[in-house]
């Protein structure tokens, strides 16, 4: 099992934290991981993204050029990175902020109203957690929601620890949203 994941959004949406949390959860399950954020020039203009690899084997390159899983938090990221997604790949996108329906037919597309769901639970700041929950629901081989929750304390900074109750709810809500959709 090797999953190359690319998470993209704008600064403050928590794309890089989301990647780190997936890494910690997969580590918790004994898997190999790597995480590398965008830095410098890529960050100017507000974009924030990260490459994550989760694998049972050694990880050759931490850089994900062609992801198996693409998670986009905003419109700009979706249009910029969708062509990189491998055929048969999985796109999870934040349909609260992205109103363009992706046209590629060779991929699995899952829309999650991440901001709206998070807002309903208390704060749209947890939209990234909703999307992690969705990824964990769709691809439990990467990491389970339970593992993600067990590692929350390590990834979230001390000043935000009181948000972890909300984060937990958001993670479960994300998983629930995609599993309900799958049943339909």
């Amino acid at each position, binding site marked *: 099992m090797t999953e190359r994941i690319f998470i993209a959004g704008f600064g403050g949406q928590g794309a890089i934290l989301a990647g*780190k949390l997936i*890494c*910690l959860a997969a*580590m*918790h399950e*004994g898997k*190999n*991981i*790597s*995480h*590398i*954020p965008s*830095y*410098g*020039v890529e960050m100017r203009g507000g974009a924030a993204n990260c490459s994550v690899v989760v694998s049972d*084997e*050694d*990880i*050759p*390159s*931490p*850089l994900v*050029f062609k992801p198996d899983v693409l998670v986009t938090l905003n419109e700009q990221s979706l249009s910029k990175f969708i062509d990189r997604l491998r055929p048969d790949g999985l796109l999870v996108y934040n349909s609260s902020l992205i109103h363009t329906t992706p046209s590629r037919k060779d991929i699995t597309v899952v829309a999650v109203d991440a901001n709206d769901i998070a807002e309903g639970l208390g704060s749209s700041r947890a939209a990234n957690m909703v999307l992690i929950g969705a990824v964990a629901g769709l691809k439990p081989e990467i990491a389970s929601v339970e593992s993600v929750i067990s590692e929350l304390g*390590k990834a979230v900074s001390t000043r935000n620890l009181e948000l972890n109750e909300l984060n937990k709810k958001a993670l479960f809500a994300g998983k629930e949203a995609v599993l309900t959709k799958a049943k339909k």
Partner: protein
Amino acid sequence: MSDKLLMKGNEVIGEAAIIAGCRHYFGYPITPQNEIPAYMAARMPEVGGVFVQAESEVAAINMVLGAAAAGARVMTSSSSPGISLKQEGISYLSACELPAVIVNMMRGGPGLGNIAGAQGDYFQATKGGGHGDYRLIVLAPATVQEMADYTVQAFDLADKYRTVVMILGDGHIGQMSEPLVLPKPTGKTFDKSAWSLTGAKGRDQHIVRSLLLYPEDELEKLNIRLQEKYKLITKNEILYKTYMTDDADYLLIGFGMCSRLARGACDVLRKKGLKAGMFRPVTLWPFPSAELAKAAAGKKKILVIEMNAGQMIEDVNLAIGCSIPVDFVGRMGGMVPELETIVERVETYVK
């Protein structure tokens, strides 16, 4: 359940230096290694150490020289253009036979270049970037764990041989986070009392200098001593790794980040029925020439993979005496070769 930490490569270098007993860090910021000075700025006061953000790279390397002369374990870090600025100081450190650890998280060049990870400073690091007949021990880590382990080892090597040791990484492995177990201190101690500048009251003065004018053969004597030291380092300290080389038809060679790609390509090629193996120099100087010659014997072809124009090929050809055809896959200017490109290239060898 994992007991490992998840840390960023650059930060790990900072923590590993502290574990090794480094209490003096002097640097000047440059992307993509800024997490090292940032980490040191936060941690050094906690462990009673010294952090100085100098006014320039030149100032920082000369602060390193001063601290090393006083017998301290000392480190500086920078990225390619900043390392170029430090070359005069590195030559002086080498002439003064002072131990120091220098980290270069390479970025795209030449010139100011860009801030993406690259490997274009191989020549500068291994052939002597400054003036005169000197060498650095150059360690090229490929994982965050190795960045920790080799940083600790670098301080011992520097003290053991009174020489400069360079950790040669790139912007990508510096920015990358991976699981690691922090190393323990090695516990080795080195007596510096015979040469360090600690105050001469009650003893003969010690002199640390790189200007040797009289008698006229004084400088040659230093050079002969340095060359003997470099021979000893070459005899004792070569590090390398191999992966499935014994039965391989094709030998893939890369250092640092590219060794990860080479190893990954071997796995893919083996599944396709092609016998590929990997040879990876860990010490770029001293280069594992005899070890490579042995691993390469009988192979049909060698493929060197680098994030530069092929700088290591010269050392590969010197090692194997040009006895086997050497091919090259590389990207420059901060670009990284893709695994598929390497696999496809090897597949052309059987067509």
